[in-house]
């Protein structure tokens, strides 16, 4: 799966968006996240795994607990993809205008 697709899949879920939002305030452990989310701790762990795979979240080992934090790599990939989408659309538009100008050039001129 392309990275941006993983990001889309990750952000397609409401709980995962909520987790990303919570991590925006600062790094958290699974337990801290589970305490404020309406889902179980194992479910939070599952969501965090999806978020890690997409590059939206990273974690570090702090003794006995894993601390999760936002990672901007995932959003950068998604953003890059959106950029490339508009590049493609505008390229095709420019090509269409070029064809148009050639058509006009081929017409007999009456000046």
């Amino acid at each position, binding site marked *: 799966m392309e990275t941006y697709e993983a990001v889309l899949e990750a952000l397609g879920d409401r709980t995962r*968006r909520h987790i990303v939002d919570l991590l925006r305030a600062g790094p958290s452990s699974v337990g801290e996240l589970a305490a404020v989310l309406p889902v179980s701790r194992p479910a939070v762990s599952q969501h965090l795994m999806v978020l890690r795979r997409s590059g939206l979240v990273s974690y570090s080992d702090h003794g006995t607990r894993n601390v999760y934090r936002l990672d901007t790599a995932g959003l950068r990939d998604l953003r890059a993809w959106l950029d490339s989408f508009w590049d493609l659309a505008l390229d095709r538009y420019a090509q269409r205008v070029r064809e148009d100008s050639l058509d006009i050039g081929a017409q007999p001129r009456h000046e």
Partner: protein
Amino acid sequence: MPSNLTSLKPVRKSVTVPAAPPRAFELFTSHIHEWWPLQTHSVGARQAVGLVFGEGVGAEIVETMTDGTTSVWGTVTHWEPPHYLAFSWHAGTPEGEATRVEVRFTEDGPGHTVVRLDHSGWERRSDGAFAREDYDSGWEPVLGRFAAVAATLH
């Protein structure tokens, strides 16, 4: 998280085309079906057969599928030919989660136009579904909207 905010700034693009602004504007709007990559960038994908860019404020951008159903992608909010055009953008997403696209056509020497496109509005809250939730989150709708728009254009 400033770096996240940076990554959600408007998408800005520009291209120079060999036509004066009036024709560049006309090709961008009335002739959109002739250049938009509909097969890969639409709600209906392979079922998509048509795309119409309505003229004037309040007009819609509408995709048509093979079975005749339609999908509204957005509504024109500014129609100032040949220099400026703006429309809401909610292809495949609820209208309340619309982002915004602005297009400026600036003459660049005789017979040439610089077309600048800004796709923005990622930071705006949707005031419908999310406002009813019991937590007040400024960021979650942003992520959702960003993902939804990008997914639609897949």
